[in-house]
């Protein structure tokens, strides 16, 4: 039985740059007691579709151009705001992507949790409270009593997402819409949340509409899959058949982009480029008396020419470690030697010279490029600064650089906002390799990108590394990516180094129990990809 039937839904946005058709005549069918997943990359219209169903798109600029959405005998698209409000939070619950921002930071958990009950039922505050505590127990929150009194910031992302799920389910809706509910979470947490959603769906026998960009994630839990690309539904059907026998090229491309391949064999590199001994980077915050020990007593060495994958969950200190190596943050204690130079005691002019040889690529290509500088200026800046080229040769040099990262030369005078995420990351990479550095810290360089783009950028990085002989510290939370690119892997947990070794060894015979836990959480392991 269909729970929700969407027919020919079209949604567009009127912006100052013209009208954008976000969803074009899409049909979706969500069955009772099943998990239907919508897969698509950013801009595919998958989220817009769901929000449009519940009237959560601001109009203007949004506009529903046509279609029907039948749910419980009524067309959601024709309901008045008032009637729609009665559906929201009672018959249809929603879970959003980022649990960090989707809970009201100013209200206690209990208050927010009970709100749908108070809005849609006649329960008293006391009854609502009891019900809320039950729900918190059901989603596996330790100490629900106390949680009711807490504010969202006191919880980790995973806990918050549990609260969000509890909130969405508190009125026992027939349909749960989950919009990328695990994307912002760490791998281990992601696995738990996925499991929770699936088990709740089965236990309650409800319909779930699960939106994700990650095929691997949904592969294990979805019953039905709909693949969307640029507002169109390109393929749909039974989860197994879509994954195992994709018909549409785009679906095939998505599947192919999932990082895979066995770890390469490790060939020890003889020369050491960088060593750190007993590195500590602590932060002192104004309010707290105890410093935050972001990096706590870490020692290892990076060999010339290798890619060292640094893996860890959020808060493990991996990014801080990367920044410490480049002296972008002040270290508290410890020694860093780069090619024989002691970075702890280096003078400012020497550091400037040294910066030519060490560069960084950042996670978010949207914030790592100055929005007011053209590509040309961005790329020219390091060249000029380190006197690598003359003014007269600048243009040639910048073009060569653009060629090497795969950017059309014609884009030289454009600004970052005119580019897609992948193109921006190419610019950022271009900037990093401009000075022909010996060493690059790549801090989650592909985690903000869509899967298909991710694969391209990883390929580019691998090529560049070969070509220029760059040594790289590749920081990521994504084990699949790490496995694909790294020669050796270091695992960090709570500021400490858990384990370091050749990739193959670490993935196949993890020593630390944490690493084992981490490896188990890789999504899609049990799904059968081609």
């Amino acid at each position, binding site marked *: 039985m269909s729970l929700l039937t969407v027919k020919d839904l079209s949604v567009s946005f009127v912006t*100052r*740059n013209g009208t954008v058709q976000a969803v074009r005549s899409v049909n979706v069918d969500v069955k009772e007691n099943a998990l239907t997943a919508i897969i698509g990359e950013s801009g595919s219209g998958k989220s817009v579709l769901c929000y449009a169903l519940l009237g959560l798109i601001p109009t203007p600029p949004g506009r529903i151009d046509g279609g029907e959405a039948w749910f419980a005998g009524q067309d959601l698209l024709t309901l008045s705001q008032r009637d729609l409000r009665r559906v929201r939070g009672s018959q249809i619950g929603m879970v959003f992507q980022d649990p960090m921002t989707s809970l009201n930071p100013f209200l206690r958990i209990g208050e927010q949790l009970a709100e749908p009950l108070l809005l849609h039922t006649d329960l008293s505050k006391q009854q609502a409270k009891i019900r809320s505590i039950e729900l918190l127990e059901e989603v596996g929150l330790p100490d629900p009593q106390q949680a009711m009194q807490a504010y969202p910031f006191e919880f980790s992302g995973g806990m918050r997402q549990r609260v969000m799920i509890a909130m969405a389910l508190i009125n026992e809706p027939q349909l749960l819409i989950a919009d990328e509910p695990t994307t912002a979470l760490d791998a281990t947490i992601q696995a738990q949340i996925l499991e929770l959603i699936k088990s709740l769906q089965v236990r309650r026998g409800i319909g779930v509409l699960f939106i994700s960009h990650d095929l691997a994630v949904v592969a294990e839990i979805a019953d039905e899959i709909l693949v969307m690309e640029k507002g169109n539904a390109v393929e749909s059907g039974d989860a197994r058949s879509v994954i195992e026998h994709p018909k549409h090229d785009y679906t095939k491309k998505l599947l192919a982009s999932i990082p895979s391949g066995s770890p390469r064999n490790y060939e020890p590199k003889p020369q050491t480029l960088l060593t750190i001994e007993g590195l500590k980077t602590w932060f002192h915050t104004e309010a707290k008396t105890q410093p935050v020990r972001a990096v706590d007593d870490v020692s290892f060495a990076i060999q010339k020419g290798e890619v060292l994958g640094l893996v860890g969950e959020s808060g493990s200190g991996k990014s801080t470690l990367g*920044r410490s190596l*480049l002296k*972008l943050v002040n270290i508290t204690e410890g020694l860093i030697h780069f090619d024989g130079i002691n970075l702890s005691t280096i003078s400012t002019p020497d*550091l*400037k*010279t040294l*910066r*030519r040889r*060490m*560069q*960084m690529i*950042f*996670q*978010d290509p949207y*914030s*790592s*490029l*100055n*929005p*007011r*500088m*053209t590509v040309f200026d961005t790329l020219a*800046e*390091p060249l000029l*600064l*380190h006197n690598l080229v003359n003014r007269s040769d600048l243009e040639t040099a910048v*073009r*060569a650089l653009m*060629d*090497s*990262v*795969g*950017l*059309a*030369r*014609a*884009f*030289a*005078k*454009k*600004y*970052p*906002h*005119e580019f897609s995420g992948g193109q921006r990351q190419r610019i*950022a990479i271009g*900037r990093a390799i401009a*000075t022909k550095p010996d060493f690059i810290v790549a801090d989650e360089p592909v985690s903000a990108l869509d899967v298909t783009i991710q694969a*391209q950028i990883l390929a*580019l990085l691998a*090529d*560049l590394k070969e070509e220029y002989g760059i040594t790289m510290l590749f920081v990521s939370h994504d084990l699949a990516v790490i496995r694909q690119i790294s020669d050796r892997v270091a695992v960090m947990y709570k500021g400490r180094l858990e384990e370091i070794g050749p990739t193959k060894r670490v993935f196949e015979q993890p020593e630390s129990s944490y690493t084992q836990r981490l490896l188990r959480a890789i999504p899609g392991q049990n799904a059968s990809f081609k």
Partner: protein
Amino acid sequence: MSHSPVEVADDEIEASSLWRDARLRLQKNHLAVIGAAALTIMILAVSLAPWISPYEYDAQNLDLGATAPSAAHWFGTDIFGRDLLTQILYGGRISLAVGFIATAVALLIGVSWGSVAGYCGGRIDAAMMRFVDVLYALPFMIFIILLMVVFGRNIILLFLAIGAVEWLTMARIMRTQVQSLKQKEFVEAATSTGLSPLVILYRHIIPNAVGPMIVYTTLTIPSVMLLEAFLSFLGLGIQPPATSWGLLISYGAETMEEYPWLLIFPGAALTLTLFSLNFLGDGLRDALDVRGSKD
């Protein structure tokens, strides 16, 4: 050498510039266009005052006195029998000049001060902002009188005096801006490139703080014009018979029951400027806001 296929032939796309884009977006914003047009007309009118008005701005006709608007005097005359339209035109020269130049002075000082404080942080920031606190608390009038005595009276001083007051708030706003921009990865990227803090400030941080500053600036200009009236009244600013909108408004306020036109017309001139500036400012901010153009 090339690793990925280059999809577009080289150098065929016309370079699209931030400023050109901004201009295009600005042109689509009707209110901003109207604001810009009104400002242009106003600036033209005050510059061409002698050709627009048949009267000298200081030519008196004591026996005529204050008269209501008429065919001969479109905006009426003041108690000296001087043509009000002419006075508004000439007063506009001073008001607009003071408004724009003094604000520019304040902007220059405030932006430099605020961005250095915000960028350096720590003790330097604390010291610099305490200095601003001290200036905030000083008796403004005594300060002005001293300035006047030490430097004598001239229009440059007027700009300085006003700039010296207005920059404080600008510095605070700028500091907040810089503090948040400092966290952005592109600033970190610039550091890792090896750029010096000063270059990072003026190349990477300040251009990105333009938006909020524009809005505050458009609000500052009219209040600067009124501050000029107050200073002129104290004897620091311009001296009669030269006049300004602020002075005309303060004179007009005294006799608003007897000669309402002496208040209404200069007030309208100032209000018109305020709205034009504000529409233009909002338009500029939106036009320059590159974030708003994607996503």
